[in-house]
């Protein structure tokens, strides 16, 4: 309907208007600028956090599965006793035999206490009973000595593996293999040294990762040192992350059979796969993004009202110009388009500045130490969405002033003082 160059001309004119009224335009677009800057910064922070967390998950093992007791929800807690729901060693053996989707597994059980080595005493040491598969599952390799053997396990031998930090903390030899230490009145032979835990966002010792003394003993030894109804859980590594559902079904079948649960009865155990956590986290991140987006969307609407106000001022200031343009042949549609493009241009320029500020904020976020936001960056979809939203605000709030301009009577407009 209108010459394509008309659009170019209208945009150039709009930019000219913005440039001539620099201060006014800036103040007008401030709402948009702040809105876009804050939404992009929030999205950048969230996406940085997401990247970081997902990387952590992957390092932690996306193909990991936890199997532990569970008291069915909503049912009288007395109905199922601890003896009924706790994991039992025959169950552990059954799972390790009958679940083909599980590559390897280890039970873990925790003890705590004081460890003595020579004259050195350390309190509150975490002592964990494990199977040899633990090293592969947790990705913690030995740096000295050997892992536990089947014989260690079978005979519940008093052998132990310590972590690297312990050598220093317990003032042991540089090569402590074959040294002894005392735990709960028993003498343990050190057979190996395992690397310290990698710094991680997860796990009990967040922030202090790898700096604590850790002691590992064969699972059977740990079992013998506790009451007969002791607590343990199973960590399984799956053949691949994709078989999580199959593995869960296999474990469920095995355990229900072992526990003689009737079809109507609920599970008295819980199977948790890592991918479930990933899904949950992704959902949470999406939720926070949506909420942040919604809040900032409101601020953009407020900015839009400012745009509408200034466009109304612009229309009334330029009434004579509108009259002249109509006199030389501008159709109402052309006038409408001109003012609409001006509003959109104003919004988009505001959006561009806001995006620049958002980018700087994101850069600032990455520089905050220990905030876990090193990966903060504005994703492309957020850039596109910001501009789309700005354009929408421009159209929405520019429409009324533009219609007002388009409807002006040329004679009245030319007579306007």
């Amino acid at each position, binding site marked *: 309907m209108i010459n394509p160059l008309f659009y170019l001309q209208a945009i150039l004119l709009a930019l000219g208007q913005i440039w001539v009224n620099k201060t006014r335009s800036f103040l007008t677009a401030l709402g948009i600028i702040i809105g876009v800057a804050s939404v992009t910064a929030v999205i950048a922070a969230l996406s940085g956090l997401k990247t970081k967390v997902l990387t952590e998950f992957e390092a932690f093992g996306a193909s990991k599965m936890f199997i532990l007791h569970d008291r069915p929800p909503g049912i009288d807690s007395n109905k199922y006793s601890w003896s009924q729901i706790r994991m039992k060693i025959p169950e552990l053996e059954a799972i390790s035999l009958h679940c083909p989707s599980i590559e390897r597994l280890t039970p873990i059980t925790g003890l705590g206490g004081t460890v003595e080595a020579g004259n050195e005493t350390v309190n509150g040491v975490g002592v964990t009973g494990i199977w040899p598969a633990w090293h592969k599952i947790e990705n913690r390799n030995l740096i000295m000595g050997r892992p536990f053997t089947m014989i260690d396990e079978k005979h519940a031998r008093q052998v132990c593996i310590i972590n690297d930090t312990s050598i220093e903390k317990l003032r042991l030899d540089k090569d402590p293999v074959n040294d002894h230490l005392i735990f709960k009145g028993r003498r343990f032979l050190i057979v190996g040294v395992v690397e310290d835990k990698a710094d991680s966002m997860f796990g009990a010792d967040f922030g202090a990762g790898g700096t604590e003394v850790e002691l590992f003993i064969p699972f059977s030894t740990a079992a013998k040192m506790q009451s007969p109804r002791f607590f343990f859980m199973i960590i399984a590594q799956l053949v691949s992350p994709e078989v999580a559902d199959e593995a869960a079904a296999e474990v469920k079948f095995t355990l229900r059979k072992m526990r003689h649960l009737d079809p109507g009865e609920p599970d008295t155990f819980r199977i948790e796969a890592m991918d479930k956590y990933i899904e949950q986290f992704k959902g949470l991140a999406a939720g926070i993004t949506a909420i942040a987006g919604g809040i900032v969307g409101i601020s953009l609407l407020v900015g839009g009202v400012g745009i509408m106000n200034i466009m109304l001022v612009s229309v009334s200031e330029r009434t004579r110009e509108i009259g*002249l343009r109509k*006199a030389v042949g*501008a159709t109402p549609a*052309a006038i409408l388009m001109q003012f609409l493009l001006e509003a959109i241009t104003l919004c988009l320029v505001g959006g561009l500045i806001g995006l620049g500020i958002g980018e700087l904020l994101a850069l600032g976020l990455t520089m905050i130490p220990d905030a876990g936001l090193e990966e903060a960056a504005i994703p492309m979809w957020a850039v596109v969405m910001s501009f789309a939203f700005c354009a929408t605000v421009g159209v929405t709030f520019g429409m009324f002033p533009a219609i007002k301009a388009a409807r002006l009577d040329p*004679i009245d407009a030319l007579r306007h003082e």
Partner: protein
Amino acid sequence: MIIRTQSLQKIYRVGVERIHALRGIDLEIEPNEFVAIMGSSGSGKSTLMNILGCLDQPTAGRYELAGRDTSRMSSRELAQARNEQIGFVFQSFELLPRMTALRNVELPLIYARGSWRGRRRKARLALDRVGLSDRIHHRPNQLSGGQKQRVAIARAILNNPAILFADEPTGNLDSATTRELMKVFEALHDEGQTIIVVTHETDVAAHCSRIIQLTDGLISSDLKTGNGQARTQVDGDRPEVVVAPAAASPAPKTDGSPR
């Protein structure tokens, strides 16, 4: 016939009051006429010009522009007619302040149908015709009143309109500038341009080949001047108006250039 109106009426409503601005105008204007529409304020001359210039539509009656009935035109078609067949010159110039003379002159082409190719050349040509080719990159605030009005004329003639309307074109100019500007109009008239000037200044009307007097929304007199000769005799300095009855008897055609 470029313009033909039949019992043209315009009634404004102001509250409950009805103002009869035009009470029945019958008017015919031939190509290359140089017409002055005169009258006191309130006589309806501006209303008539607005209707003839397709800025407004009559309440009753008929107006044909170049053979087309305008009463059935949409606002879009009227805008198109203004763009292609009509050029306006206003008393207060109405130049856009932030644009150069050239850009101001180009303005109607933005709204024109068809290609924009050659618009700069066209605008230069128009400025050339009004004798302003040395001021094309000046902005309105760098131009004198007379120069501004010549830019406005260049803008009006850009599309070679069928009619050039001028509404009190010399109202804001001194007498020396007025004479200069009237020479521009005369030159355009000599090139074949049809011009309608709305004015209350007899000096201005004296340059025209036909003077229409409006009183209370009706044509009270319609005179042809012998202006073709008059202009050469007294050279623009308040020439004697040679009166000839216009519509009644076919007056000897003395106006305009031979072509």
